[in-house]
């Protein structure tokens, strides 16, 4: 289960706050949301403080988003290690 909350900051940035596990169908859900924001050229950040686990597809998505300039903020130690590996 992953709770996805989209927050629009006054500065025009979109922050996607995630809570739970970035796995299975929620990877596609997050991907669709991020694609939509990136297509509209909105600066985007992901708040990963409450992500407990990311599966292989989840890690691949995060790497891909990072490469496209999305800021990955507040990674937990575990998710940071997953991204580093």
């Amino acid at each position, binding site marked *: 289960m992953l709770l996805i909350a989209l927050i629009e900051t006054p500065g025009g940035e979109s922050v996607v706050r995630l809570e739970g*596990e970035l796995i299975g169908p929620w990877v596609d859900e997050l991907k669709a949301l991020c694609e939509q924001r990136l297509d509209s050229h909105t600066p985007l950040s992901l708040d990963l403080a409450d992500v407990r686990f990311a599966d*292989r597809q989840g890690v691949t998505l995060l790497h891909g988003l990072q490469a496209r300039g999305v800021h990955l903020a507040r990674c*937990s*130690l*575990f998710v940071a290690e997953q991204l580093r*590996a």
Partner: protein
Amino acid sequence: VSSPGSQERHQTLLAINNAIISSLTRDRLFHAIAVALRRVVPFERTGIFLHDRDRDVLRLFVLQSSLSSAYFVVGLEIPATESHVGWVFQHRRPLLRRNLEKEAQYPAERQALKDGVRAFVIVPLVAHDCCLGTLAVASTVVDTYAEEHVTFLQEAANQIALAIDNMLAYEEIAALKARLERENAYLQEEIHRTHNFAETVGSSPALLALLASVEKVAPTDSTVLIHGETGTGKELIARAIHDRSLRRSRPLVKVNCSAISAGLVESEFFGHVKGAFTGALERRIGRFQLADRGTIFLDEVGELSLDTQVKLLRVLQEREFEPVGSNETVRVDVRVIAATNRDLAAAVQAGRFRADLFYRLNVLPLRVPPLRERAGDIPQLVMFFLARFSKAFGKSVEGVASETMQALGRYPWPGNIRELQNVIERAVVLSRGSVLELDDSVFAPSSHLPSEATPRPRETTAEVEGRVGSEGLGEMLENIERAHIIAALERSRGVIEGPHGAAQSLKVHPNTLRSRIEKLGIRRPAPEKS
């Protein structure tokens, strides 16, 4: 007043019987009863009140009425005392009001008067010597009812009470079943939440190769034999296979073959009927039946006795068995996943494991690599367990000292992931600062261990073969077993039972562990505290 004739009464009672037999839902049942009653008893309103034991009230359960009322509506609650309905319920005797205007005593009766009711009969509903509630008929005409009506209604009420008793039992069973289904769904989710990730933590080639194999074998319905050292996560791999199979909506039932005593293993697998043996106080469903249309996971399958292997073989071949003490053959559709840390091929050679069972199980073999073969995954696993235990124990550990991480990476982990998990759990519990640090004592072999009991996890095949040649396979396996038990006892500080006990970390029953400790002549480092 016209009294019901004998033939009409019998016909009506028969009609009520038929309604009771054929109707299970309350609305259909009551509608059929009302239609039957109307043939011999005139009424403008009829209803059934049932007693709510928890609140000690009589609640209007069903109502059929041509009189409009703001008061007499389904769900109305009337006190079990101080009411006309309550009087009948308490005294278990009928109440006849020929002229309500003159005879009304209770507030609820005055409400009925307002609705136009002028006469009524109320009779108790008694089944199995228990009063369930009351049945009432009411009329707008004074002197509609006589004693004959009361007698007849009581006869009908006795049958209706039995039907209501059955219906309430049926509804209770349905509610319990629904609750069990909800609880089952919740527990399945809990299992997934707790166990579903650890097997996929890491990105080493050895793990990725294993996970690729899992993806391949999962959708097939073939038997899988998982082989791996103690603590490598064989159960998690079994769960991963089940979760990716077409049987995932059905249960994965685990049987730890080493934890079941020889005398009970047949009952555990196949169930028993009541009285099958001394102590079989109730009928019990076996694990194979529980796993029907799902998956059964036979952990430590190498520990089964030869007798039990024969019985297991039959189920695997024919997918049928008889519960202990029963002549009835039960057929099941079960996928089997077995796991062992023993070399079953060698056990076959030594005559300790049946060759035919081995070939039945070894259809799709999977090897789970020991942690020392995937040392690159250690940092991820450390962080995974650190996050889990920090949260569980309310600690805010924000990192791991680099020396500690290096030491964790160097250690050979004879107890594999389970040992790493235990080390991190202990470290989090004992941690004081925000950075996790471990001293060398966590890794150092115990000074009082016998030299042959020290784990030798990094041995090459040639070294192992050399040792087998010098000390014999049986002796070598005993030494390895001894080393694992001593290491587990060290970690648990001599505690055998309980969540942090050695039995839990070795995944064996505490009694099995005690028996092995005694047989192998192991002295525990400290007295058991559990």
